[in-house]
């Protein structure tokens, strides 16, 4: 074939094709539920639980192999110590006492942070104040100001609340303020179009629009508060009349009841997981995931 005929063939118009689409009802399945096993493994909780079981087995096997309950008690020892103190009411009491202090500190910090970030979005002075304060205090570990807190507030709940507020406030404020700043100009203008301004703009537009960031800040703040609390309790133990989880761990260590120390740590982890997995997850599901502001 010569080049000329090839070109000629290429340039020949190709015939049109038209088709009648088939009746959809005759095609059969268009969508179908996924298989049972695939469905089960798609559940995050199931996969995580499997990881947990694996870790538990590894712990038990290693502890038995080491065979030194004073240094490294096995999972079963830990669980029986945990169960004993749970049923005697000692652990629940310690946990409740810790949680009470925690909630006071966490709540106070959130209230303060709400005031500070609202000021920061509505006034230039507020912005500068917040930026400077967070830059200064965010890097300062909460435990480092505990001596000062003891000096000011004495040996008691208020000192712990003070350090918790310090550990939560800056993280939550920083996240909330960043969230406010990233709310789209269009959404702000839409809000102002309805005559919203000042505090009403913050409440009705900025807070819901920045909710993903705010929630992230609340989560980080919670983790900070929890760690700070346990650490503070470990340092000076009894807070007022009730002893918390940190004190419980400290006492058990002094008595060389290592399994009980582990039981205390386990409780700290369990409460942390419960708050993360139940409280924050349900808030997420009821808000940002329902609103399509988070995609998984």
């Amino acid at each position, binding site marked *: 074939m010569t080049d000329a005929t090839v070109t000629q063939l290429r340039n020949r118009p190709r015939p049109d094709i038209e088709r009648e689409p088939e009746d959809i009802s005759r095609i059969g399945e268009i969508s179908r539920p996924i298989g049972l096993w695939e469905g089960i493994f798609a559940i995050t909780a199931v996969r995580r639980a499997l990881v947990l079981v694996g870790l538990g087995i590894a712990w038990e096997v290693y502890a038995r192999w080491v065979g030194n309950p004073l240094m490294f008690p096995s999972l079963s020892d830990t669980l029986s110590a945990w169960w004993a103190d749970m049923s005697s009411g000692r652990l629940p009491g310690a946990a409740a006492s810790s949680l009470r202090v925690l909630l006071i500190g966490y709540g106070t910090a959130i209230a303060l942070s709400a005031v500070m970030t609202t000021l920061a979005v509505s006034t230039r002075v507020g912005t500068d104040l917040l930026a400077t304060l967070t830059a200064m205090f965010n890097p300062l570990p909460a435990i480092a100001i505990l001596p000062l807190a003891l000096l000011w507030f004495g040996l008691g709940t208020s000192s712990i609340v003070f350090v918790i507020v310090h550990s939560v406030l800056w993280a939550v404020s920083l996240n909330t303020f960043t969230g406010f700043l990233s709310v789209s100009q*269009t959404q702000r203008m839409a809000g102002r179009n309805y*005559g919203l301004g000042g505090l009403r703009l913050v409440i009705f537009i900025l807070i819901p*629009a920045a909710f993903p960031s705010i929630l992230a800040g609340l989560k980080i703040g919670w983790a900070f508060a929890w760690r700070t609390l346990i650490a503070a309790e470990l340092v000076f133990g009894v807070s007022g009349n009730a002893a918390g989880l940190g004190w419980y761990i400290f006492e058990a260590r002094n008595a060389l009841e290592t399994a009980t120390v582990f039981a205390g740590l386990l409780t700290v982890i369990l409460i942390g997981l419960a708050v993360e997995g139940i409280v924050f997850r349900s808030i997420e599901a009821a808000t940002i995931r329902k609103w399509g502001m988070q995609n998984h």
Partner: protein
Amino acid sequence: MLATEKMPGVAVRAGVQTLLQVDGVTLQYKTRDRLVTATYRVSFDVKEQDRFILLGPSGCGKSTLLKCVAGFLSPTEGTMTLDGRVIDRPGPDRMMVFQEFDQLMPWLTVLDNVMFAMRRSGRFPKNEIRDRARRATVKVGLERFQDVYPHMLSGGMKQRVAIARALAMEPRILLMDEPFAALDALTRRRMQEELLELWDDVRFTLMFVTHSIEEAIILGSRILVLTPHPGQVRAELDATAYSHEHQGDAEFMAFNRKINGMLFGMQETAHD
């Protein structure tokens, strides 16, 4: 023939009240290192029930003008009055529909989005709000989606919600900033037709920004042609005679070419 079609319209319009008066408005942006003039001494009047189009190339200051009418900016020179009162702040008597789909509140359902504006502005009796919002969503064909969150809607549907939300407020003037520019061609055309039907039904006053000559001719009753940056008035044209049905007609094409010539000098390519 064109003239005879337009004459009655002109006669009727002559008696209509002026709603918005823009008089020698210069708009500037102050940035860190420069002063940008977006529009220079723009004047025009919008009458009741006008479908008033701001047409011009990208960057000529159309959005800036509209934002000024909405009250988000104030002019450095000249005045803008609505019903004789100087515009100095945003308000629900001038409702804005933006180009961006994120103008809806993602945390509210379609119906709540429509009700939100009505509640917050406090312009309507509490017991009427739900009914009014329902009627507005029905008008834009979204009765089946009232309880759905915005992220589950297509772009066209989101814009319909924004239009319903704005119209439910019964504003003196509806401001639209390229609301259909981010939609596909088919949806855009349907939305244009729906907007005209809605206008036939409600007879609101509309101010509509676009950079598409075709869209301007189809939607507008009056077209303000702006020059490239900084925007100045090049012409104010009557476009009552043209709609979708006339799109292929010789007059439509001629009108299109005329505007095209105004916008781009001698270039004679009449496309979107």
